[in-house]
């Protein structure tokens, strides 16, 4: 008969080591799939699609007057394909260049309001302010407005938008 832990100190040490080892093995074996499930998003590639915004000539743009144009991205998210409705804020600059902004505040992502009387975008959450060219003019936002990745069609009039921001090193969601 094997000695009890009370009779032999080395037997006690052995038992404790075995108990520790068994706990460690089971713990690691369980942790691996659980970590996999939790960290899974880090290993998934984002679904990037091109979506047609429309013709610029239809928008009747006036200089420095933003126009909010909805786009609908059909994007695979997890196990389903969903429509993500998003706003594209088209601004025509004085020199005729076009800017395609997101209406998300760059502070923490609230939806911006265009206040025509003040010629500013205002964030209703924490008071961030941007001018019509997307520069921060007040409040806490750390950077200018995000711009959508876009391209022009063959007719140089139709615009396509990608569900992705330019100059977005932290890969901020939209």
């Amino acid at each position, binding site marked *: 008969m094997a000695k009890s832990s009370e009779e032999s100190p080395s037997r006690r040490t052995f038992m404790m080591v075995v108990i520790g080892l068994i706990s460690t093995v089971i713990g690691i074996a369980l942790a691996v799939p659980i970590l996999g499930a*939790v*960290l*899974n*998003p*880090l290993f*998934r590639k*984002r679904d990037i699609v091109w979506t047609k915004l429309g013709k610029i000539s239809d928008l009747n743009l006036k200089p420095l007057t933003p126009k*909010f144009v*909805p786009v609908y991205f059909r*994007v695979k*998210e*997890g*196990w*389903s394909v*969903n429509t*993500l*409705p*998003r*706003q594209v804020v088209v601004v025509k600059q004085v020199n005729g260049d076009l800017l395609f902004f997101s*209406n998300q505040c760059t*502070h*923490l*992502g*609230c*939806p911006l*309001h*265009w*206040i025509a009387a*003040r010629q500013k975008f*205002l964030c*209703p*959450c*924490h*008071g961030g302010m941007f001018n019509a060219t997307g520069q921060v003019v007040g*409040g*806490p*936002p*750390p*950077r200018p407005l995000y711009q959508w990745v876009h391209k022009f069609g063959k007719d140089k009039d139709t615009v396509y938008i990608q569900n992705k921001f330019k100059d977005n090193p*932290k*890969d*901020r*969601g*939209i």
Partner: protein
Amino acid sequence: MFKQIQNWFDERIGLTKVIEEFNGERIPRRGGWAYTLGSLLAFLFTVQVVTGIFLLFYYVPYFPIARNATYFLKHHVVFGNILLGIHLWGAFTMIFVILIHMARVYFSGAYKKPREMQWIAGMVLFSVVVVLGLTGYMLVGNENSWWTINVLTNVASHTPFIGGFIREIARGGTETSVLTMQHIFAVHVWLLPIVVIMFIPIHLFLIRKTGHQGMALEYKNSKISEDDEKRWLKPDGTVPFFPDQFYKDMIVSLVVFAVIYILAVYVGAPIGPMYRPLALNFAPEADWYFLANEEILKYFPGHGLIIFSTFLIPSIGFGILFLLPFIDRTKERSPFKRPAATVLGILFLLLLVYLTLIGGEPKAPATV
């Protein structure tokens, strides 16, 4: 008949003795009503679990549908408005009562040796309950829920080094999607309640293990000097937990439950509009217990300072609260004999109230 059943159990497991041991705990006598807050919280948590389980009979954690499921529950299920209302107002009450409970413990110095671990267990419970509140707000699936998810995951993304990963893991991807809702659902319904269910017994066990450590007024007639730790072991008078203290607990629970019930029936749970990602005039609002934090977010402009409002101030503040028993190691208990701690506590509470009030001011961008 009843006696026979009792005997049957007693012969096998000594049930009466166990119950007597649990109920017979002696509680300091003078502060009876102040000690009801803990039991009240246990009661409120039980109510949350029970109502929550039956809300799940109808709830669907899928973004556009979640709000409609909640709407159906409120307007088409018999007494569903009451069930939902109790869950909402119960949650609000719970957070409010936790704050009072914490303030009571703070001002009476009850976190001091040997009760440090209890304070920490309590802080774990507090943080988990606040996150339960926030995730519950997100699960309603209305417009505010959508923006709360976005804003809070963006706040988390400002954590140094791992912020981006935290946001991606929490959202289940780069964007708020069906997976985000599923994650929040699992956290709200399984993960965090289990943490609470584990930590309530720890909190209780520690209280019983460390014995009486009541408020200073329990020891007025004590002859042992104030510097001696033994002073805090012998209150002037004690009563058994059951029925003396339990009776007070029940009265307080009934009053608070009645208030919750009335609010549930007559105010109910506002569900709000469906989420419209294209809306141009929507101003998201946080729940009242997050407004102080929300207000801090408005300051600290620019790229370098944003980390103060999103990470440093909340985490340092929380860290100080967490480690309070190790920061304040004096033996003095009476709030009048440790004026620095008392004044700081009052100032902190005033600041919290002030930030909440200005954070809750209606924002009207059109008038800016």
